[in-house]
């Protein structure tokens, strides 16, 4: 079939025109005769991105019956979408067009006009060669489901569910225990300082339970998930009754599975049993919530309390961020309960990140809570032995010992990660898509992580994440709107694939699955992000990335090296 390629060079005002010889480019590319059945239309134009310029291009495409289009102009970051838009309004498939950036890469990098022109010619000829090898691609629109599955009924899951349901999204909230609220609902006061949040948290729980758009499923866990953003299918199962399985169709998921605590009894320096007066900070919180006072196992108020920070920090290898404040809050609570209680806080480092924390710490210190910086500390029951930073050794017996164990991933986190097909950080918490710039998304589109499932943090940061994830979902999945998945994705060439599974290993998104029957790798197009890493890894050349195929890049390359 005869090919008719239109090549249009934009003057970009003086930006390109002053620094490259456009006439010379037109003359040179018009003479290109390195392909059969090829006709070239090459013309200069003032400003192709202007309204007139776009109309001109449309007219040229239609009147000349162009089969391919090459534009020599600015960076694709400026106007690639402009020209794709132009193509879409014509009969020309936008994937048969190529923009060559002769402004940033030729006109602006050298004062020598001849050299700039020479490079521009070579660069455009590469684009011309490439475009002849490009294929039409068709964007497929997919219906989406705006409903959301929230995994975990703690404060993170509750907040995400409310933020979505208030925007009229149907939310399925599954919780593995028999109640909502998680650990936060057992706190009498919350950080920063000692704000009373019981009512606020209870109100949120009640709102979730009564919400017309939220279906709460207690004693329920996730069994299986398949699909992709906008079209997931989940199977959830009752923990009490294994026969009871529910199928849910959703568009996105929020993982809010929370945290567990490091088991201090496994640490060689902390020797205690269930009979000893040794408690975790969380147990004290729960005691306060239940009976509004702290007592020893014999029912007496403790006269002396040791509070030990950073239990297991060395072992897990990170700071849990909120325990220092939680412990200071409890120290204050002991002083409120009985001002003459001796409260000694044994710490190694203090982490006081919130702007109110320092003042609160100063206040508690002024109330007589003693802070002892220790290098090493060990307990045997409620007998404490320690070495201070200046190497003084001490040994004291207390009525009660409160430990702040490190926060660790919730039980079942690895299993959940496998079911969801998302990665874990080296600490065992769920891994975000990008630590700095995409902190609530995961590598899988449509799956978000919030709260302590993502790592240690307090309630405030947890709620911020839950709200962020909810708004991301609200933007990505708009009821009634279709999504256009990336079409420049990888595909396997069945005849060449030898089934080595290398591509499955390198794909960060789990977009490649293995077809056991055929013994070949198959790309899940809706999941593929189109990076082409699998192409680079394939030893038999059996994968190609659409729009970045080897023949296409070869044509560009061959021109560059001639």
């Amino acid at each position, binding site marked *: 079939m005869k090919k008719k390629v239109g090549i249009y060079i934009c003057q970009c005002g003086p930006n390109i025109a002053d620094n490259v010889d456009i006439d010379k480019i037109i003359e040179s590319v018009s003479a290109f005769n390195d392909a059969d059945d090829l006709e070239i239309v090459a013309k200069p134009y003032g400003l192709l991105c202007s309204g007139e310029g776009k109309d001109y291009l449309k007219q040229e495409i239609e009147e000349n019956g162009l089969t391919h289009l090459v534009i020599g102009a600015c960076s694709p970051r400026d106007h690639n979408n402009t020209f794709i838009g132009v193509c879409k309004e014509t009969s020309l498939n936008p994937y048969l067009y190529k923009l060559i*950036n002769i402004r940033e890469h030729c006109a602006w*990098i050298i004062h020598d006009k001849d050299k*700039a022109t020479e490079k521009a010619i070579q*660069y455009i000829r590469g684009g011309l060669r490439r475009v002849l090898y490009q294929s039409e691609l068709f964007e497929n629109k997919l219906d989406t489901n705006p409903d959301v599955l929230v995994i975990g009924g703690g404060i993170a899951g509750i907040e995400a569910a409310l933020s979505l349901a208030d925007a009229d999204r149907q939310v399925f909230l599954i919780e593995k225990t028999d109640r909502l609220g998680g650990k936060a609902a057992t706190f009498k006061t919350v950080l920063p300082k000692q704000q009373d949040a019981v009512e606020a948290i209870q109100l949120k729980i009640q709102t979730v339970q009564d919400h017309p758009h939220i279906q709460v499923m207690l004693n329920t866990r996730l069994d299986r998930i398949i699909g992709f953003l906008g079209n997931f299918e989940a199977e959830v199962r009752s923990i009490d009754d294994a026969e009871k399985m529910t199928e849910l169709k959703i568009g996105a998921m929020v993982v809010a599975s929370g945290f567990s605590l490091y088991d201090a009894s496994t640490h060689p320096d902390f020797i205690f049993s269930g009979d000893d007066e040794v408690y975790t900070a969380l147990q004290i919180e729960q005691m306060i919530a239940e009976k509004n006072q702290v007592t020893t196992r014999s029912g007496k108020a403790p006269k002396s309390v040791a509070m030990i920070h950073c239990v297991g920090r060395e072992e897990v290898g990170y700071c849990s961020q909120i325990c220092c404040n939680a412990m200071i809050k409890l120290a204050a609570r002991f002083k409120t309960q009985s001002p003459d209680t001796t409260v000694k806080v044994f710490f190694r480092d203090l982490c006081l990140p919130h702007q109110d924390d320092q003042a609160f710490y100063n206040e508690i210190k002024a109330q007589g809570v003693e802070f002892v910086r220790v290098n090493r500390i060990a307990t045997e029951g409620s007998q404490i032995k320690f070495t201070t930073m200046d190497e003084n050794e001490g040994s004291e017996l207390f009525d009660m010992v409160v430990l702040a164990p490190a926060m660790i991933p919730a039980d079942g986190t690895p299993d959940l990660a496998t079911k969801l097909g998302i990665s874990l950080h080296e600490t065992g918490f769920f891994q975000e898509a990008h630590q700095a710039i995409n902190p609530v998304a995961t590598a899988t589109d449509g799956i978000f992580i919030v709260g302590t499932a993502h790592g240690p943090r307090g309630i405030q940061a947890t709620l911020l994440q839950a709200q962020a994830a909810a708004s991301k979902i609200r933007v990505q999945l708009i009821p009634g709107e279709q999504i256009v998945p990336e079409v420049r994705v990888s595909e396997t060439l069945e005849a060449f694939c030898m089934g080595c599974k290398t591509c499955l290993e390198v794909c960060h998104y789990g977009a490649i699955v293995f077809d056991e029957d055929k013994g070949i790798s198959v790309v899940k197009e809706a999941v593929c992000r*189109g*990076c082409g890493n699998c192409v680079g890894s394939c030893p038999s050349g059996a994968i190609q990335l659409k729009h970045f195929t080897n023949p296409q890049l070869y044509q*560009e*390359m*061959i021109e*560059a090296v001639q």
Partner: protein
Amino acid sequence: MGKTFNPKITAFLCKWCSYTGADLAGTSRLQYPTAIIPIKVMCSSRVDPVFLIRAFLKGADGVLIGGCHPGDCHYESGNYHTRRRFAILQSIFDSLNLEKDRLRLSWISASEGPKFARVCNEFTDKIQKMGPNPTRKNMFI
């Protein structure tokens, strides 16, 4: 080798970091030689080693690969794969007696226009000194 040797260098630049860095070099009007022709790829990991060898066999005097800095890959781990493949390719160059200095891998972020220009200047200069790629003449495949 003629008096005026104009090296031919192909640069595979990832769309997100290095290509954008190259754009910035242009918008900042930084000057660098025209020997380098860029080829945009979505991720540096798309560039398979065999393709690079083909570039040399076809006459490239030098090949530059530009990717995001480690940890900054738009596709999370693509550049780590690039780095591994690059190390292996270099060792293959050694065993085939090819000049591995004609290959260069650089991490250039979207904000590193000056670095892109510097890398282009250095690399062109180096290839200029090395002279034309002898592979095209010597190898028959």
